[in-house]
């Protein structure tokens, strides 16, 4: 016999005594039972007898204790009945006391929603815990919602949350490190308990609570895994929710109040006694707190304890702490809260999120909700409901007349006889069977009416095998799987999932506008002009034509900021982009703010407007202890693009300069280069003068990278890419830096001091020296040819080549040479060297595709012939040029030719004046004689066939 049926049966016979407050007969029976099982009076007998004492004690308490269990329709039903009968003047609720103000906002929401307490600024706790987040979900089919609705809707009734504040929850965690996480969240720890391991198909909805710690009213579950396993095994059920449903929920759903209360107290007491001590200590601490708070409130409000109702989990009802009872005067010191500032709000929740967080079987909360609706219809009890509550399309059933007579004792009756199968259930089963077949068909199953018949038959048979009078939803689910599921799942969902959907499905709550934090309200207000309903749970497409409707510009700004701050996919641009110097005239967006309300709500904890939050976040990035110059430049960019606040940008820029000068590594050099280039381009294009911080950044960077260059070249940890980026900065910003007072000699010295050993870096250094004019290209070419000719060096040649490829970034004019070297390498390297290296080259090029590939392909296109036949007659330009290269003085460029040079040579006055101004002595090189050789062929051709040119001239002059 299972423990549950055991106790129920015994209780059934003991009820008359229970009414008198004496449980002598029951106690005796339990002791007998214990002796029979354990064959000696001992621990078991003590526990069983103690349970009766607990019930006795709780019932005798003057302040009425209402034991509940979470997601229990029976609790909710009993609560609704009791509240209508008793009409208490004050309701004490086992709920974090700091969450009480949130309850008033519930009427603006569609349930289930979760009350959230959130703290990002942590004081007095381990800073690693931040941000702290606690959620307490509330569903409609729960006793606490009944109590809340009654108290808030009835004038003159006070609702008091008496449990630990969220701060105390974490204080306990900190005081008890062993119990961390698990203590604050016994249910999360229970998630891995046997019987709950369902297949984990991840749904978006089940992650609605994020990584918050969950607390719940009325956690009632065996403290030991072993006990639970035992109960499940002998109860012939798969998981805890099913056990509860079958052995407690169903028998109690039609029970009278006294029966309900006594049974719940008994179960609570049993689990409490079989709990491990750590858990128990925590429970007792909370009970002390709650009773003290209640007594304080009673004293302050001068209410009679008889007018109050204390709603708590059944586990806490049978408490043995000395503070128990309205008349107790045991002192208890309530700990001060820490300095942590807690923020509170409502976030949407869902059945699947609750199940995932509290380790319940999948679909159990939905089944509870369905049972609640059914129980309401059958019992005719009118539930309490907050006025204006959303999502209450269904009409509440007519209220049954409530008699004022004391509750009749129906305990013995129903506990000894099984619940009668309602006519409705038969009908319901048929409807379900038909519906599941329809649903299965829609999901690709080959299901037919024959399957519907088989499902009904199998459900009834299964219920029979499992010793139930009528099929439970769980039996139905098994039957549907047996009859419909074949060897493969044709669609996305299997039959189990379809059953869950059928039995109520997942319900997702929504927080109403009025209950949203100011930031979220502000965002919704500002997005109003879009004309899109953002409360809908589907993805909304917003189209913005900024040219024809300039007023939408403000909306666009808001959307870009949200896009920056919210996780991916919530505010998603489909068309349009906003970057430095880029603005779209048309934008289209996919918005799912209705579905992902939680993120917006949590953003609301950080500030009052999104601009303020963004500013805070950027500031945080730039002033973080591990901030880097590149991150600060990123923040500058964001601030420029999204906020456009000049003062703030300058502040961030100054911080970037500060960070750069303090940096000792050059890991971020590529990022820094990319960003500062973009910023400079932006400022040059849009402003008359560079901002001060920008100038400072360039001069500081020039000096900084010059200093670090020799070390970066030699150090193994610094990659080629970083060094290339440093050189890129130095060469690219040189003109600006020199104009701002930097010294070119600094760079020359730095390069001269560099003595790299790695081949790639050596190649990079050579490129730098060529750029500086210290090394001539022909020398470099010779060097490379020598290397290719030397069999001992050839294996290392690919490394050099990598270096050259990287040199494209700092020295873009190096491209022809890189193409040349690469062609030679491909031409002459042996396959066993070339082939292993090729993938690496491809990877390098792919990684830096944006910077390197266009330069290289353009150059290659210019060098190589465009068609195959031309290839035969083609000689590489370097081979054609080579014998004629007249370069005698390294570093001195040959005299340029062309129309510009000709013009300048013809009118030298301006250049002479400029040279004089710089204190130089102008010397004019002789221009190469005659017209440029390149164009001579063209002029010859034109000379021979002048007709076309003449016709063109005539056309132009006409």
């Amino acid at each position: 016999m299972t423990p549950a049926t055991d106790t129920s049966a015994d209780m059934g016979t003991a009820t008359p005594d229970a009414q008198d407050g004496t449980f002598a007969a029951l106690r005796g029976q339990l002791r007998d039972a214990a002796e029979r099982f354990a064959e000696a009076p001992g621990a078991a007998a003590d526990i069983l007898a103690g349970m009766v004492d607990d019930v006795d004690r709780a019932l005798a308490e003057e302040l009425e204790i209402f034991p509940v269990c979470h997601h229990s329709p029976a609790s909710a039903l009993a609560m609704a009945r009791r509240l209508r009968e008793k009409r208490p003047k004050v309701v004490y609720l086992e709920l974090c006391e700091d969450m009480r103000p949130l309850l008033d906002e519930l009427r603006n929401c569609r349930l289930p929603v979760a009350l959230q307490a959130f703290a990002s600024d942590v004081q007095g706790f381990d800073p690693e815990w931040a941000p702290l987040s606690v959620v307490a979900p509330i569903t409609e089919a729960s006793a606490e919602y009944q109590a809340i609705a009654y108290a808030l809707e009835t004038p003159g009734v006070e609702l008091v949350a008496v449990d630990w504040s969220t701060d105390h929850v974490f204080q306990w965690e900190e005081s008890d490190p062993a119990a961390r996480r698990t203590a604050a969240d016994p249910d999360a720890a229970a998630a891995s308990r046997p019987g709950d391991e369902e297949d984990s198909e991840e749904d978006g909805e089940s992650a609605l609570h994020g990584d918050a710690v969950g607390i719940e009213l009325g956690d009632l579950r065996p403290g030991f895994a072993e006990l639970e396993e035992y109960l499940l095994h002998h109860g012939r059920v798969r998981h805890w929710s099913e056990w509860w449903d079958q052995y407690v929920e169903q028998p109690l759903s039609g029970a009278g109040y006294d029966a309900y209360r006594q049974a719940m107290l008994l179960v609570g007491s049993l689990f409490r006694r079989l709990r491990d001590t750590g858990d128990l200590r925590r429970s007792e601490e909370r009970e002390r707190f709650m009773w003290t708070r209640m007594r304080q409130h009673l004293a302050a409000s001068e209410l009679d304890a008889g007018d109050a109702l204390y709603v708590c989990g059944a586990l806490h009802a049978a408490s043995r702490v000395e503070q128990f009872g309205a008349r107790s005067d045991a002192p208890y010191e309530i700990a001060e809260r820490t300095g942590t500032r807690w923020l509170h709000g409502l976030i949407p929740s869902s059945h699947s999120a609750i199940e995932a967080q509290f380790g319940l079987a999948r679909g159990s909360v939905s089944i509870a909700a369905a049972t609640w609706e059914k129980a309401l219809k059958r019992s005719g009890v009118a539930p309490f409901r907050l006025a204006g509550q959303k999502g209450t399309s269904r009409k509440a059933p007519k209220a049954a007349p409530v008699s004022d007579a004391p509750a009749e004792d129906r305990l013995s009756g129903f506990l000894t006889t099984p619940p009668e199968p309602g006519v409705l259930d038969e009908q319901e089963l048929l409807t379900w069977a038909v519906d599941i077949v329809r649903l299965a068909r829609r999901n690709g199953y080959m299901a037919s009416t024959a399957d519907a018949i088989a499902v009904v038959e199998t459900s009834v048979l299964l219920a029979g095998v499992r010793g139930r009078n009528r099929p439970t939803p769980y039996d139905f689910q098994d039957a549907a799987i047996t009859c419909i599921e074949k060897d493969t799942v044709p669609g996305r969902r299997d039959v189990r999932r379809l059953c869950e959907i059928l039995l109520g499905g997942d319900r997702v709550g929504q927080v109403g506008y009025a209950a949203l934090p100011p930031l979220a309200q502000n965002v919704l207000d500002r997005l109003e002009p879009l004309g899109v309903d953002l409360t809908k749970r589907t993805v909304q497409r917003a189209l913005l034509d900024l040219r024809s409707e300039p007023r939408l510009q403000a909306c666009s700004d808001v959307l870009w900021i949200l896009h920056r701050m919210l996780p991916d996919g919530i505010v998603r641009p489909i068309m349009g982009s906003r970057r430095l110097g880029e603005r779209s005239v048309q934008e289209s967006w996919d918005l799912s703010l209705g579905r992902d309300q939680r993120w917006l709500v949590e953003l609301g904890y950080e500030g009052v407007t999104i601009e303020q939050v963004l500013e805070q976040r950027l500031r945080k990035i730039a002033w973080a202890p591990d901030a880097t110059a590149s991150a600060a430049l990123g923040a500058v960019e964001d601030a420029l693009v999204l906020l456009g606040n000049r003062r703030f940008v300058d502040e961030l820029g100054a911080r970037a300069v500060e960070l750069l000068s303090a940096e000792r590594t050059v890991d971020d050099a590529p990022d820094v280069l990319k960003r500062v280039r973009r910023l400079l381009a932006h400022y040059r294009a849009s402003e008359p003068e560079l901002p001060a911080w920008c100038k400072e950044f360039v001069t500081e960077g020039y000096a900084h990278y010059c200093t670090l260059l020799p070390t970066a070249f030699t150090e193994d940890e610094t990659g080629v890419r970083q060094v290339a980026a440093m050189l890129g900065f130095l060469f690219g910003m040189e003109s600006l830096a020199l104009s701002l007072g930097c010294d070119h000699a600094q760079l020359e010295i730095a390069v001269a001091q560099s003595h790299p050993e790695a081949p790639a870096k050596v190649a990079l250094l050579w490129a730098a020296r060529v750029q500086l004019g210290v090394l001539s290209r022909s020398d470099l070419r010779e060097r490379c040819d020598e290397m290719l000719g030397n069999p001992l060096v050839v294996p290392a040649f690919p490394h050099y080549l990598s270096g050259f490829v990287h040199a494209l970034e700092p020295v873009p004019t190096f491209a022809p040479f890189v193409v040349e070297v690469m062609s030679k390498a491909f031409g002459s390297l042996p396959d066993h060297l070339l082939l292993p290296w090729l993938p690496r080259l491809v990877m390098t090029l792919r990684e830096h595709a944006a910077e390197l590939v266009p330069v290289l392909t353009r150059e290659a296109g210019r060098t190589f012939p465009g068609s195959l036949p031309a290839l035969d007659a083609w000689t590489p330009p370097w081979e054609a040029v080579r014998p004629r290269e007249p370069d005698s003085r390294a570093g001195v460029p040959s005299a340029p030719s062309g129309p510009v040079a000709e013009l300048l040579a013809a009118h030298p006055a301006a250049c002479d004046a400029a040279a004089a101004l710089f204190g130089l002595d102008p010397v004019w090189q002789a221009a190469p004689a005659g017209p440029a050789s390149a164009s001579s062929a063209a002029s010859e051709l034109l000379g021979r066939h002048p007709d076309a040119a003449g016709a063109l001239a005539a056309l132009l002059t006409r």
Partner: protein
Amino acid sequence: MTETDKAKSGKATSEKATSEKAQSGTQDMLRAPAEVKYAEELDYLESVDDGPKPFTWRLSPKMVRAFILGSERADGLDREIPQKWFGDRTFVERSIVTLASDRGLLLIGDPGTGKSWLAELLAAAVCRNSTLVVQGTAGTTEDHIKYSWNVSMVIAKGQSRESLIPSPIMTAMEGGVVGRFEELTRSTSDVQDALISILSEKYVSIPELDDDNIVFAKPGFSIIATANSRDRGVNDLSSALKRRFNFVRIPVVTNKKSEAEIVRFRTTELLRRHRIELEVPPTLLDILLQSFADLRTASAAATSDDERLESALSTAEQIGVLEDAILHSRFFGDDTLRATTLASSLVGSLARRSPEDLAILNKFWHGVVEGRSKKEGGEWQGFLEGGREAIATLS
């Protein structure tokens, strides 16, 4: 003789045969069918069973469950019935219920997950006859499912009911008992399709005969088929046939505790069959289970079939390994099961392809077993040695 009379006499003969078999005990049989082996248990259950029985079932569904899964206190029996099939309770319940309904039962799963054993137990408990089996192979023909003719008798007497040889399925129909079809997906589609009419119309017509040419199924007739999920795609079931079967998928047992129970249970049985008195030390059982668990993890993580052992690493495979080791120690050893023997049995049973399987085992031995032997010592060291030797011998 009317139909019912015949059925009665058929039933009587089969029962008589069963009880005789039971009487002669399991002595003369290498492997007794479940209804013979557990005849006494079944008799007892039948005597105390007062629950409603569907059709001609010998036990009520609850008692069938108790027979297969073992009794619990809640069943209110005054003696303990041991568990015979280990696995999720739901599977058994769903299977029993399916047999009581209009549809056939198809047990599907990886090889070695206990499908056939469950089918045998179900048939034994429901109708005391688990021997009406058709084995599905590529060579199975429609005759094996319906009926064939005794040729010499046909020549002598012509076609009549006497010269007809009923198939096990037809016998089951006539007797209103459960017929079994092993490896349904191994047989070709036309053979499978012959089952459709049997399962829906519940009769077989014999067009060769002029009268008495239809064999109707008696109430209680049902079919338990098994199919190997690794064979999927060889001969896929038609949707018409699928519709007539309820599928119960039996997963590979991965829970270490229940796996240990299964291995222990089956090995004890095998030992009894071989009449061997030999103790299996719990530490060795642990090593075996642990190795299989490790190999399964490795197999799940492998990306190609070459990195995966050919074996399905099922529970049955473990039993095979243990049995092999025990027999080896009994006949060639000193009557004690040693870790080295176990290791060489394991290598010998799992190394089917050379060099792929050997390479995997070699890697496993060096990567995992060596680590465990260093960390845990004890029997693992012997296990390490034995495995190494066996791998060296084979490669």
